[in-house]
């Protein structure tokens, strides 16, 4: 199923992009920070729909043809990753400076400090926000239809135009999304439990 394929690729990569962008905006030099900020501002500023159309039609003006499926995947990664990066950036900023000082005091380089001390803690703090973005990504994956990807929404629309039973078909579609997201929620809860640091309550009971 195309929707699942799009999500299976774009979800994990968008998380990695989000972590990379968020980290770059805190620790990068002027150039790296500038590039990361530009990406985040752009793709949080553009409507997803417009991003997809620009990747698909805009790039073809320069002779670059991106197939519809990959247009959707790239667009979703950029958009979701940009949103997620802000959760990561906020989480990094919330880590007590003492963690950083302690890391440096045992001789860690800045990079080691970020990789082994700051990010493991920051990603845990950003986790709930990130899952929220991923659930939202499931929903706007339906926008892939605008560039002609035969994902669930597109298929349902075609189905409806054949039989003209909008209430039944779209209710079915809604339920399918609901089930998918429910499965994800359970999956995320599992990860959340595994990530929890004993002795520290990350979530309210």
């Amino acid at each position, binding site marked *: 199923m195309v929707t699942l394929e799009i999500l299976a690729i774009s979800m994990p990569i968008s998380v990695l992009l989000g972590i990379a962008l968020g980290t770059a905006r805190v620790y990068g030099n002027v150039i790296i920070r500038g590039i990361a900020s530009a990406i985040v501002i752009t793709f949080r500023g553009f409507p997803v729909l417009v991003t997809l159309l620009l990747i698909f039609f805009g790039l073809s003006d320069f002779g670059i043809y991106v197939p519809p499926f990959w247009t959707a995947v790239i667009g979703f990664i950029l958009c979701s990753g940009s949103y997620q990066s802000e959760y990561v950036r906020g989480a990094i900023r919330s880590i*007590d400076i*003492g*963690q950083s*000082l*302690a*890391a*440096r*005091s*045992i*001789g*860690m*380089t800045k990079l*080691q400090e970020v990789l*082994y*001390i700051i990010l*493991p*803690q920051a990603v*845990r703090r950003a986790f709930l926000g990130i899952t929220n973005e991923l659930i939202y990504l499931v929903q706007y994956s339906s926008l892939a239809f605008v560039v002609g990807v035969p994902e669930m929404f597109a298929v349902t629309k075609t189905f409806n135009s054949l039989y003209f039973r909008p209430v039944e078909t779209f209710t079915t579609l809604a339920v399918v999304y609901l089930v998918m997201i429910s499965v994800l929620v359970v999956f995320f809860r599992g990860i959340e439990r595994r990530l929890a*640091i*004993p*002795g*520290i309550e990350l979530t309210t009971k």
Partner: protein
Amino acid sequence: MNSNIPVLKVENLKKSYSGRIILDGVNLEVDKGETKVILGPSGVGKSTLLRCINMLTLPDSGKIWLEGVELTNPNTDINKMRQKIGFVFQDFNLFHHLTVLKNVTIGLTKVKKIPEEEAIKIAASALEKVHIPNTLWNKYPAQISGGEKQRVAIARALAMKPSIMLYDEPTSALDPQLVGEVLQVIKELSTAGMTSLIVTHELHFALEVANELLFIYNGKIVEQGPPEEVFANPKHDMVKKYIASIYSRKG
């Protein structure tokens, strides 16, 4: 290595924050095996001095040498030198997401690139020195007491085999009943020959452990000497007041 050179030498160290002078030309030396204790009222730059020594805070001017290597030289690999300077923080700063054991091994495996198995052995020996039983090794910082946290923090620094240990008010954040266990550990290490520079307000501890007391006031060392001498015959007014105030507080 020349045994005549001090482990730590600080020369004319200066630091100010937005125009306010914190350190105004500090000179000090710590020889191998010595324990020096820095005393003085709050807010006179004692902690700033320690942080300048391992360059967590950059001094404005002055020079610092560790075993003859100038830390303040921009060409010195400061990350490498910091491995040789054990630093113990007032508020422990254990890595929250790591177990007690991992807190101690991470510097060994990631910084010194020592294989995991060997790192655990070194960590075990460091944790033993600070009396952390192996039943606590797999606990996380949030699951142990403040005194245990600080002792683990000492073990984390110790495991790196430092040339000197810097303690920045190591018991100030602890409940009174937990202070003793931490001071005991510091004293044991010091007695065993660990070169140490300690900032503290625990006067009795300072008297027991120090080879020399240093009093800082207005960014300068105003008095220094063996504890019994300084206490018997304080010269500087601040030192007199400080000693008097502490005795009156203790009753």
